[in-house]
């Protein structure tokens, strides 16, 4: 290594770098820069318009309330405290055939064989285990029942998706289930919602998209 390179490296340790600001890594982007005076090139305008259209098609607004099937998702700046040790109160155990008699649901192939099935308040819960521990919970309920409220932080990504051709919403991050069967709010894993045949499906699992998309 030359002396000059060594000197530069020593200099790097003595440079007064601007202090690193506090970042919000998952928050909405910083405020836009002030508008420039010169007119934006046409190609740039076109790109912005296309970008906005793509955004509208894929991601949902960063604020407000989203109604989807029987679920309502509210974006908030501050999440409330949650139950530190929630229990999965899924209802009364029933057979899968009985559940089909209550609600006419269909299951993606990877979810076709639940480890346990429950009924609660006109909804059906299907539990999937891995090594004896809950891996995924699929809840099925009728659209428009106002059954489920979710609270998500404004930084949480909520995206429109398709689940086997049906419209869906994917809440990517850990968020809060504010109300499902009442009780204290609890933290939820990434969740996929989709609607099909007048029913709303809610799948909570780390790999929800992969589980629901196959078959």
């Amino acid at each position: 290594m030359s002396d000059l390179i060594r000197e530069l490296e020593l200099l790097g340790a003595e440079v007064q770098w601007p202090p690193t600001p506090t970042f919000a890594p998952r928050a909405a982007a910083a405020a836009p820069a002030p508008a420039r005076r010169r007119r934006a090139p046409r190609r740039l305008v076109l790109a912005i318009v296309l970008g906005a259209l793509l955004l509208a098609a894929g991601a949902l607004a960063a604020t407000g309330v989203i109604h989807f099937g029987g679920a309502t998702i509210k974006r908030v700046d501050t999440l409330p405290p949650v139950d530190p040790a929630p229990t999965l109160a899924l209802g009364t155990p029933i057979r899968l055939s009985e559940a089909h008699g209550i609600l006419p649901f269909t299951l993606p192939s990877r979810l076709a064989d639940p480890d346990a099935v429950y009924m609660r308040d006109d909804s059906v819960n299907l539990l999937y285990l891995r090594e004896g521990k809950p891996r995924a919970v699929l809840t099925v309920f009728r659209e428009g029942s106002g059954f489920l409220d979710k609270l998500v932080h404004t930084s949480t990504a909520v995206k429109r998706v398709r689940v086997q051709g049906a419209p869906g919403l994917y809440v990517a991050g850990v968020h809060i289930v504010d109300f499902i069967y009442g009780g204290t709010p609890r933290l939820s894993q990434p969740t996929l919602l989709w609607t099909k045949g007048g029913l709303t499906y809610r799948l909570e699992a780390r790999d929800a998209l992969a589980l629901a998309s196959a078959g």
Partner: protein
Amino acid sequence: MSRPLIPEADLVDRARRGDGDAYDQLVRAHQDIAFRTAWLVSGSSADAEDAAQEAFVKAWRALGRFRQGAPFRPWLLAIVANEARNRRRSAGRREALVLRAAAQRRPSDGAASPPEAAVLHAERRDTLLAALERLSDEDRAVLGCRHLLGLGEEETAAALGLRRGTVKSRTSRALVRLRAELGEEAP
């Protein structure tokens, strides 16, 4: 710069699966180098802050496309530097590099003179800094990334949007020009 206690690969894996806390830890571990890289590229603290903030959000949204097992920092720095390039200001408005506690390293009137070697040392740093400031943005950026920030060739290539070979040749040429600014002969 603090490093995460949990292995970075684990944090990346968790973040890819939507674990926001894991991603926050990753950003905390790399935010200094990311912000400084953005500052070197954009030439402005305000632009660097905007660029890094925007880049962290974009990286979070793009984690699904991150190649598993790949090093995280070059990938993040590439996004940061790209945002910073989009905000780069004209050369006339660029903030200059300054030395930390420069005033303390110079003897003030009436103060005891530091040892001669230390004065020479400080003067050499000032000379070096001034020579760096006279270089083109391109030369200063590559020397800044490689030798002031200590980024590797691959990271510098990602940050500056260059091929690795170009980083090598550009660094070499920038060192020649820096020596010329210092009035020195090549070794």
